[in-house]
């Protein structure tokens, strides 16, 4: 009897480890506090009442380079013009590809004509793991109420070729526009593609 209880307890513990809290669209987005390239601290709660876009990035990743050929900058300009908070998140650990200093991040933003609200750092990977961010780029849309509305890929063609951008269905752009219009995006979850996040 004891034996069975032990087996039960041990395996139930294992199971609960395996199925830890899953991220879900339609549920409140995980809270976070991050510091940006200028040293300012941001908390998700600070943006209550505004739509928020999270973009996981790594400037050396070919898939990020593909979209920074103009597509990403255009999206940033379009969104921020409509009062969307756009955070470019760098989860690369120190020493890993894409890890940059605040100054370097600002320089990259300037040289690429990027216009995010802020570039924020997540060296420890805590935010990336909370959002289950797997690739760069990896896109999230959070609505004014703090509810996660979209997560996944930037578009439908997983490739590193710039030519494919115009051929692809712009999943993220469609979703962000739907959220701005007060609608629920469809699809709300798509397959992210790109380089692995360098945790």
């Amino acid at each position: 009897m004891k034996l069975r209880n032990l087996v039960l307890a041990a395996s139930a513990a294992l199971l609960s480890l395996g199925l830890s809290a899953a991220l879900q669209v339609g549920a409140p987005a995980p809270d976070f506090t991050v510091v940006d390239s200028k040293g300012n601290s941001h908390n998700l709660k600070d943006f209550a009442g505004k739509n928020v876009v999270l973009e996981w990035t790594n400037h050396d990743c070919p898939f990020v380079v593909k979209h920074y050929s103009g597509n990403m900058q255009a999206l940033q300009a379009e969104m921020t013009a409509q009062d969307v908070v756009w955070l470019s998140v760098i989860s690369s650990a120190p020493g890993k590809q894409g890890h940059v200093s605040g100054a370097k991040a600002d320089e990259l933003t300037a040289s690429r004509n990027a216009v995010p609200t802020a570039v924020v750092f997540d060296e420890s990977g805590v935010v990336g793991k909370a959002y289950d961010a797997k690739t760069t780029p990896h896109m999230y849309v959070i609505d004014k109420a703090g509810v996660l509305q979209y997560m996944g890929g930037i578009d439908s063609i997983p490739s590193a070729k710039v030519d494919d951008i115009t051929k692809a269905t712009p999943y993220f752009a469609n979703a962000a526009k739907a959220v701005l219009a007060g609608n629920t995006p469809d699809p709300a979850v798509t397959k992210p593609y790109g380089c692995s996040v360098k945790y």
Partner: protein
Amino acid sequence: MPKLILLLLCCLLPASVLVGQAQAASSGWQSASHLQAELVSEYQQVVPGQRLQLALHFVPDPHWHTYWQNPGDSGLPTTLSWQLPQGVSVGDIRWPTPQAIALPPLMNYGFEGQTILLSELSIAPDYSADSIDIQLQADWLVCEEICIPAEAQFSLILPVASQAIAAADYQPLFAEAVARLPQPLSVQGQFDVSGGAFSAAITLPEAKSISGFFVAASELVDHAAVQQISLNGNQLLLQQALNTYFSSAPTQLELVLLADDGAYSVQLQQAVQASTEILVTQGQQSDTALWLVLLMAAAGGLILNLMPCVFPVLSLKALSIAANSQQQHKRDAVFYSLGVVLSFVTLALVLITLRSAGAAVGWGFQLQNPYLVALLVYLLFALGLSLSGVVQFGLGLMNSGSNLAAAKGSKGSFFTGVLAVVVASPCTAPFMGTALGYAVGQSAAVALLVFVALGLGMALPFLLLGLVPGFARLLPRPGAWMDTLKQWLAYPLYLSAVWLLWVYGRQSGVDAQAMLLIGVVCIGAACWLWGRKQLAQAGIVSMVIALLLLVLALAMPALAPAPQPAVKSPTQTNTNQHWQPWSADTLQQLRAQGKPVLVNMTADWCITCLVNERVALNTQSSKAAMALYDVTYLKGDWTLRDGAITEYLRLYQRDGVPLYVLYWPGQPPEVLPQILTPDTLSSTLERLSQQP
């Protein structure tokens, strides 16, 4: 000397020819960053109507990898785009078995080192041109920690003639490529994505030890999550949490299984609604560390010593050991332990053999056969009589106090061990059936190890007594009180016999039970006669009569009338009974009607089951809860062997009773714990009913 030159020519000539031929079958190497690639044809000259293999051959730098068809959490599969003349076509990539490339917390599936991607080229029988111009554009992503996308064009012109010529130099490459393909396995398999997990049930043609699997569909499983793999006979159950980005599942998918003897590819169909779902339940998981299972088995074995059917026999043995000499202690202890362990191993082997022979048995099988139950009744009763002093058994069991000199040595100790396991076996099933059933569900080697640990645990007190002198000194001094204790200890044995008599009665009916009781009387008489013989009060005639009585007793259960099937038929269901008999069809019908259902799998010899029913299921509050939520209560009885119930238990990865499953419409089935508390059912129902 001329001979030598001739020999050299013979060797060199074909080699030089081959080099010339080889060039025609390859596009030549192309260098990309961190990777060399070439396109190779299996044949350097082809014929119309031929099918042949083309290989895209990658040699990445050390630690750099390309990706499988499902790249995992990041990365891209290699894609090929062919330009071929009219009348020539090419199939999809035949993917080799991938490797798991972990980048915690992410997981990728791909290929490190030399990688050969085969595609099959088909030439139409009426192809008329004299050559085939093959143009390939390949796109790949090569990564170490950082990733570099690349593309390259390959071109290959194959002459078409009346005879096909294989590219001899490249045959080892193609042989290697084929060896790396997962072998297709023609099996029936289903998968399901309910309950937040990908689950698959596959009936293998033979039991294989599976160490991992790869799902070819992308964004279906959480690639880095723990893989649950459980093998019950040849029924393989797999489970892995669903991917965060999962949106919909294909109706069919490919799965690659890693076995100890190679990799296999299987096609799975999505389980149709209302068919049996696949559930890898929390009770029985394969990834509990082996040492922990063994430790718990040993603890279980130790506890067995306290069971009412074992304790009386063993406590006396312990006292007799205490009275013996130091030298004898050690020998006794070792041989006794050997007897225990070997008996458990034998039991395990019998069970494994029965199962591999296809018999639907689980642990507890020894109590599912009425004849075996009858034999155990006789055994316990006879041992009881022996403790009461009616007869002395010569197994070195009862050498307490008075007949110390009658120590029977190593053989006696060994058979005491065997006897201990035999008398313990009715006690293992009701208390430890599930745990041991789990063990048997593992590979044969693991199952045997678990039983060995169980035996060692059971023998542990004697090993300590025999090998550590300090323990023996803790025992009380032998004396006349031991005889009194011995007689007292007969009564737990009689009660154990009564319990088994009740089980037998439930299995075979009251008529058969009466026959068995006659058999018990015969055993009683035989023991009495034998005891008189031992005291030299009876002659050879008594011995013959005793043997005849024994034979009669053994024949009794065999002569017993067959149990009346009506005993358990639904027609006898009385009105205040709040359950219906389980059948797979009834369950499926009720679920199709969208009704909540509680399934209880039980057996009369399973004491845990009976306790659960008494304290948690047959109570007023549980009955009220079932009435409130309109739950249909189905009860399956595994007291006797029942293949359908064994199948159902296996579906939930159980090999023994109890099993409680609650089906709530629109939810994955919920398996209740094996130890129920009075409010388990009502609180679970309340929680399920409040879910959206």
